[in-house]
């Protein structure tokens, strides 16, 4: 159960980090998410665990933005210590990702980094799995176009 919880923690953390761009804030929100989750009346509904976790995390991220002053810049500056051609590819893909709308980046994160199934994602976003599948294809196609070459993604 601990390993399962760790996996969920990391998924929710990544989801929050993508939104708030700050490690500490993302961890705080993640922890708050889990605390609220176990107190939630639907806690017993284990088959809807992930959907509930993402929903709580999303709401907490929104609350965080509302409470922030406009002058704060929560960006973490990434440390690019990789070397060689991989760095070039990573930077290109990183830049291409940053050019996507935030919602599209989030979909890519949930699907390909967090490995969430379409059924969970469609419940979170309220659209059908087929529509979601089409959206993901479009996003990947946009990424490829941005990178300017086939096969990187």
């Amino acid at each position, binding site marked *: *159960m*601990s390993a399962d*919880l*760790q996996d969920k*923690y*990391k998924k929710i*953390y*990544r989801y929050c*980090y*993508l939104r708030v761009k700050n*490690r500490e804030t*993302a*961890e705080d929100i*993640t*922890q708050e998410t*889990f*605390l609220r989750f*176990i107190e939630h009346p639907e806690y*017993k509904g*284990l*088959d809807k665990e992930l959907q509930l976790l993402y929903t709580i995390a999303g709401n907490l991220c929104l609350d965080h933005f509302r409470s922030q002053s406009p002058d704060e810049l929560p960006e*973490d500056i*990434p440390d690019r210590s*990789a070397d060689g051609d*991989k760095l070039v*590819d*990573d930077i290109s*893909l*990183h830049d*291409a*990702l940053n050019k996507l709308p935030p919602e599209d980046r989030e979909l*890519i*994160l949930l699907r*390909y*980094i967090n490995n969430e*199934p*379409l*059924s969970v994602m*469609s419940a979170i976003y309220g*659209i*059908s*799995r*087929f*529509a979601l*599948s*089409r959206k993901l*294809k479009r996003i*990947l196609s946009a990424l490829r176009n941005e990178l300017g070459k086939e096969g*990187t*993604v």
Partner: protein
Amino acid sequence: MNNKEREALERAFDIPEPEKCNEFIEELLKKENTKKRPGIVLFQRMPAVLRYSLAACLVIAVIGIIGNIGDLTDTGKYRKNEETASVNSETTTYTPEEESTIETTSAPPQDSYTTTISTVSGVNANTTVTTVKGGGSKNTVTSTAKVTGKVRGTSTVHGRTTHPARTTAAKTTKKPSGIVTTAKATRIPPARTTIVTTITRNNVTTAASDKPTDPLVPSVIEPAGTGGDHTVEPPVRYDIKGRIYTEDQLSNNKGTEDPPVTDGDVPPSLDNMIRHSDLILLAEVDEVIFTKINGKLTTQENVTIMEPYYGDMNYYDRISVYADGGYMPMSEYRPDIDPNGTYYEPGGNTTIAKEGDYYIYFLVKDNNSEAYRLFDGTDNSKFVYRNGMYYCVGRGRDSVSLQELRDRINDLK
């Protein structure tokens, strides 16, 4: 996407590892364990085989009490689990340790009652029973007897009715010497299960073996495959912004101009559409684009085919469908009135499709592109699912079942 690509994506996202994961998880587990639900936590941590076996034993125990099975052992660990038993006019035997009284009342339709007193004795055998007085022929009453704590032996309830009872009610009374406790029914926490729902239908076309399940009741099964993309890029895309204007509103501003005259065309019949359509299919709307085709406002629906009934398209192919009418910026249409608004022309349609909608479409090929058009350009050529039937979106009242539609396609095509 292969692992190499996923790793590249992960690097590109550049999300730092969390620092407090393990520490937090430990605290969370401690917190969870100290909550007043030891039974549930323990139950959840048991191996699946034990959980299912325990659940089965408890179900048998409940059935046993109802059906008057003998000794039931209290496992101690689940002493808080409580069981329900039903009291009815049949005789059951139960000999608990303490005495209490059960009063049963039958309520035949004519509002007269026959009351019978029965004696039940047993351990903690006081029952709390819901009483509802019956009177009409349609009234029904369910009475339940709830027993707490250790349950041993059998109970005896004597019932007598003077009429064939349409309703029964039971009431418990407390003996002065007895201890009445009210049982609380508890729900056995379910084992962790994943529910997979699959709905399958008979298809009229002999299509590939990986036929999709009914998309109107989506299943958790991932889509079986992908089809060809035959969508077209519209010449222009319009957004909806600002205030919406219709022709009626603008004609008031136009002063002496006459209002537009409607066509007055009779909507096509279903058989007519079946006979003359190039494509008949069930599809999901992926994207709705407002555009202009050959100078006419058009709504382009990019759809994915869930089930082809007639025509040369396949499952999961994507096509573009043109419907008359749509939106365009007022800056192009009547900038003198409101350059920031949007003009809307219904084009004979009653609704605008949205992403995620499902329709049965009757389509003809567009003369100038790879797209298709609604049979008569309007939503008379679209059917939407409701309560087991498909209804014409435009007309509303015309309906057909899927099987009937398939049969008519087979007959007419």
